[in-house]
């Protein structure tokens, strides 16, 4: 990643135009050619520096349900519980965290009812209480990770 890549990453976190030739417009701002910008973006995606490039959709606005849930997974059963939780296709992410509530996962479903059904099934199969923490409100953020 060189300075030009860094400028591309920083610029493209601020948005991307909706117009006939948007790469050309951004390339001109950056003093690059359209082909160079596209090639560098492709390389940044290929090597994993960028995880995505495109529209970021808001799941709830699309009618889906997302919730964050946690389990106090005892160390001696941690891996078995992780295997059960991960076996659900509704579980999109799962992280071990350094807390008594040691397993934190995101459940993505099309409806709230399906989210609750998934939680019930995880509780049944693991024998653990699932602490469900659906968001009540989201506050606006303006994070930009400076490359």
């Amino acid at each position: 990643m060189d300075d030009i890549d860094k400028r591309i990453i920083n610029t493209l976190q601020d948005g991307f135009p909706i117009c006939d030739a948007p790469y050309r417009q951004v390339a001109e701002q950056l003093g690059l050619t359209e082909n160079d910008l596209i090639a560098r973006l492709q390389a940044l995606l290929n090597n994993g520096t960028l995880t995505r490039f495109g529209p970021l959709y808001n799941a709830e606005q699309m009618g889906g349900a997302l919730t964050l849930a946690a389990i106090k997974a005892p160390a001696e059963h941690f891996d078995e519980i992780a295997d059960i939780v991960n076996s659900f296709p509704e579980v999109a992410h799962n992280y071990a965290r350094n807390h008594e509530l040691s397993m934190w996962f995101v459940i993505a479903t099309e409806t709230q009812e399906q989210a609750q059904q998934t939680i019930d099934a995880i509780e049944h199969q693991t024998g653990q209480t699932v602490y469900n923490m659906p968001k009540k409100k989201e506050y606006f953020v303006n994070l930009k990770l400076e490359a």
Partner: protein
Amino acid sequence: MLDDIDRKIIQATQAGLPLTPQPYQAVAEQLGLSADEVMQRLSAMQQSAIIRRIGAVPNHYKLGYRYNGMTVWNIADEIIDEIGQQVGQLEFVSHCYHRPRHLPEWPYNLFAMVHGKSQQEVDSQIQQIKDLLGDKNLGSDVLYSTRILKKTGFRSGGPSTAQNDS
């Protein structure tokens, strides 16, 4: 409300925009629409916040942000919206949510993800939040991820978002 054409556009673009000089034209051709219609609908979805933004999502780790803390705070319900807005405005906070408490063991109702290139940087960010909150902070904790147990994209056809706690 979304209609079927919007949903087709979402399906066609949720993995990303084509890296071709006329990406909206390319999406339009794939769906049998005009480029103008695709652009108008994307603009409308952006206006109504169905699209948060169009742009690049960097991998935190690859940019050197290896210290990602989930900070959690106990804030009185009457003032949580005001406080949540202030915390969300901090430049290093990537997600900021009001979530339910689970008393007595989980008194925290405000979650803010912070990201830094060193432990020291994250510690200083947490201190900045503490300074901002003052005596409105009734208790806090910070949880670090020690292992990724699962990480997938969301299923096609279901909800899709890149904005999740990491």
